C-alpha cells in the first residue's frame, strides 16, 4: 500500500496527491507536510515541544495532526510518518508580540521537557584552537584581529562568571535551529514550522535567533522582543544569566576564524572583511542585550 493510501486510511484526509513527493501533499483540507522519523524517541521529543509550547500561545507550531484513532504518527514499514500543516506566506518580523509569545512559550516548555532524549553535548568554545589558527594572520598585523582576541578573552571570563552564578539551573532543550524564515502566516497568526533535528541543550538556538532578528530589524525591535519573551518567561533570574552568558561567550570567534582563508592576500582581505562584519554584528547583539538587562534591572530596582 502506498503512503498516500496509508494516510487516507489512517487520517481523515481525502483527495490526496503529491505536490512535492515525498514531503508535501495536496489534500481536500489544504496542503500537508509529511515528516519521516527513524527514531521514535526523537519523534516523541518533537511531538512534546510542539504540543507544550502551543498551550496558551497565539502562535501555532506545526503540531502533529492526529490519526482517526488519536495517534500522532503512522508506521509505513520503515519509518514513522507524521502529518503537519503547511504554509508558504512568510510571517515577517513586524509583529514582535507574536514572535515574543512564541519564543516565551517555547522556552517555558523547553526547560521542563519530560521526554528524555540524548541531547547533543553543549558545545565548548575552543579558544586555544582559534588562537592557533589566527597565528597565520599574526604577520599580517590586522588591527581588528588583535583587538577581537583581547576582547574575546575578556568575554570568555565574564561568561564563565555568569555561568557559575547560574550553575545547576535547568537549561532549555531546543531544536538546533530556530529561525524567522520558519515563521509563516495563516490568517493573522504565526504558524511556526519546526524541524526534525536532534535537540541541543542551552541557549545557542536562541542566541542565533536573536542575532537573526537584530540583523533583520533594529536594536529597539530586539529589546521589544526581549520584553515580550520576558513577560512570559522570566529573564530576570538565572535563566536570564544563562542567556546573557551564551551571548557573551564569543562563539563568533570560531565562525570568524573559519571564514578566514590564507590562500592569497586577496582571499585573506576578503575573509578579514567578513570577519569584521560578523564580529561587529555580534558586538551589537551583546551590547543591545546587555542594555536590555540593565534597563530591566533598573525597572525592578525602581
Amino acid at each position, binding site marked *: 500500500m502506498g503512503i498516500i493510501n496509508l494516510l487516507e486510511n489512517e487520517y481523515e484526509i481525502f483527495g490526496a496527491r503529491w505536490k512535492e513527493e515525498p514531503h508535501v501533499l495536496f489534500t481536500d483540507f489544504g496542503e500537508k507536510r509529511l515528516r519521516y522519523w527513524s527514531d521514535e524517541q526523537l519523534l516523541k521529543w518533537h511531538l512534546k515541544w510542539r*504540543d507544550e509550547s502551543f498551550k496558551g500561545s*497565539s502562535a501555532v507550531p506545526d503540531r*502533529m*495532526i*492526529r490519526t482517526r484513532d*488519536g495517534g*500522532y504518527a503512522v508506521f509505513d514499514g520503515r519509518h514513522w510518518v507524521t502529518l503537519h500543516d503547511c504554509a508558504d506566506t512568510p510571517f515577517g518580523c513586524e509583529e514582535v508580540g507574536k514572535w515574543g509569545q512564541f519564543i516565551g512559550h517555547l522556552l517555558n516548555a523547553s526547560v521542563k521537557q519530560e521526554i528524555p532524549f540524548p541531547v547533543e553535548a553543549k558545545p565548548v568554545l575552543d579558544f586555544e584552537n582559534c588562537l592557533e589558527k589566527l597565528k597565520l594572520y599574526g604577520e599580517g598585523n590586522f588591527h581588528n584581529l588583535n583587538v577581537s582576541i583581547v576582547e574575546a578573552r575578556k568575554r570568555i571570563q565574564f561568561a564563565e562568571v555568569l555561568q557559575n552564578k547560574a550553575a545547576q539551573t535547568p537549561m532549555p532543550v531546543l531544536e538546533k535551529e530556530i529561525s524567522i524564515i520558519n515563521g509563516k502566516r495563516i*490568517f493573522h*497568526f504565526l504558524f511556526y514550522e519546526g524541524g526534525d533535528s536532534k535537540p541541543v541543550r542551552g541557549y545557542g538556538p536562541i542566541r542565533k535567533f536573536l542575532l537573526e532578528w537584530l540583523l533583520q530589524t533594529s536594536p529597539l525591535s530586539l529589546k521589544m522582543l526581549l520584553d515580550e519573551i520576558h513577560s512570559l518567561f522570566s529573564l530576570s533570574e538565572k535563566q536570564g544569566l544563562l542567556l546573557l552568558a551564551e551571548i557573551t561567550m564569543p562563539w563568533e570567534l570560531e565562525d570568524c576564524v573559519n571564514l578566514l582563508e590564507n590562500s592569497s592576500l586577496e582571499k585573506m582581505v576578503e575573509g578579514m572583511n567578513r570577519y569584521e562584519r560578523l564580529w561587529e554584528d555580534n558586538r551589537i547583539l551583546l551590547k543591545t542585550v546587555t542594555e536590555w538587562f540593565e534597563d530591566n534591572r533598573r525597572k525592578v530596582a525602581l
Partner: protein
Amino acid sequence: MTTERETLNYGPVLFHYDLFPEKLERHGRVMKVITKRGTFALKEAEMSEDERNWFTHVIQRLSEIGFHQVVPLYPTKFGDYTVQLGSKTYYLMPWFASDDRNEKGKEEILLDQIGRIHALTLKEQDFSNEVVEHSYQFLMNRWENRQFEMERFTEEAEQKTYMSPFELTYLSHFHQIMRMTEEAKRRLKDWYDTCQREKRYRSVLCHGKVSRNHLIFNPTGEGHLLNFEKAVLDTPVRDLAVYFRRAVHQREWSKEHGKQLLDIYEKHVPLLNEERGLFISYLSYPEPVFNAVDLYYHKRNQLSQIELVHRLEKRIRAMKNIRDFCELIMQTPPPPLEMGNAPTKIHINDEDHI
C-alpha cells in the same frame, strides 16, 4: 452572510478543525458554521486552564459512565477538545436544528436526564466537619450580609417623605420577604444540624446551569444536554434549585406541574429529608428580589421606574410561586423509587468518582 472579517476572526479557530466556512451565523454565544463537511456549532466561552480540563473531563466521563445524552465535542485535528485563543475558549459540536415539535415535554425530559446524571454520579461523601462548617458559615454569612443591606435600604426608604414607586412596592412586601429570608436561614441551620448529627452528606455531578435552553434534540428527536461549562461536584439540590428558581417565572408554571417534575427527578434520586430541607432553603431565600433592589440602586438612572417596578413585581410573584411550591413538596411524600431506574450502585468507586 459571512463577511471576510468574520472569516478572519474565526479562521484561526476553525483552522484547528480544518473547516472552511461557507457561511457563519451568530446565535448568541454560539456560531453556526456551515461548511461542505456539514453544519457545526462553535461555542465561545471564558474558561481558565483548570476549568477547560475539568469541562472536557466531565464530558468524557459522562460517556464512560454510560450517560450518552450529551452533545458531543469534536476534537481538533491535534486531538484537543477546546481551542484557546487569547482569553476565549472555543469548542465545536454538531449543530442540532430546533424543532417546535420537541418543545412539549421538554421540562420532563430535562429533569429526567438531570436525575439520571445525578444517579450515576451520586456519592455519599466521607463526613468532613470542616467542609460542612465552611459551606454553612459561608452561605449563612453571605445571606445575613445581604439581609442587612436590604434592611438598610428599607430604613433609608422609610425616612423619605416621598418614596419612589419602586420603594413603595418593595416596602409593601418587605415583611413577607424577610419572613422568607428567616425561613431560608432556619432551614439551612436545620440542614447543618442534621449533617452534624447524621455525619453524612451526598454529592453528585451538578450540571451547574440547568435550563430548558440547555436541552436540545438531535434529528431523531432524542434530547441531549449541553453547556457543562459550570459543572461542579455538589449537593443534588444545587441543580434543582437553579432549575426551579427559573421555572417559577414561566407563564405556564403551576405548583402541581412543578411537583410532577420533581417526582420525575426523584424517581432517580429520592431526596433525603435534610436535602429536601436544603432545597426549600435555597428556593426560599429571596435573592432574586434582592438583586432587583441592587439593580434599582445602581441603575435607577438608566432604567425607567416602571421597568424596575415590573421587574420587582415579577420576582415577588415568583417568590409567591416558590412559597406555594415549597408548601406542596413538604406535604406530599416523594414517589416510590422505580426499581428499573434505581441506581444500582452509589458509585463506581472512589477513584472513579467524576
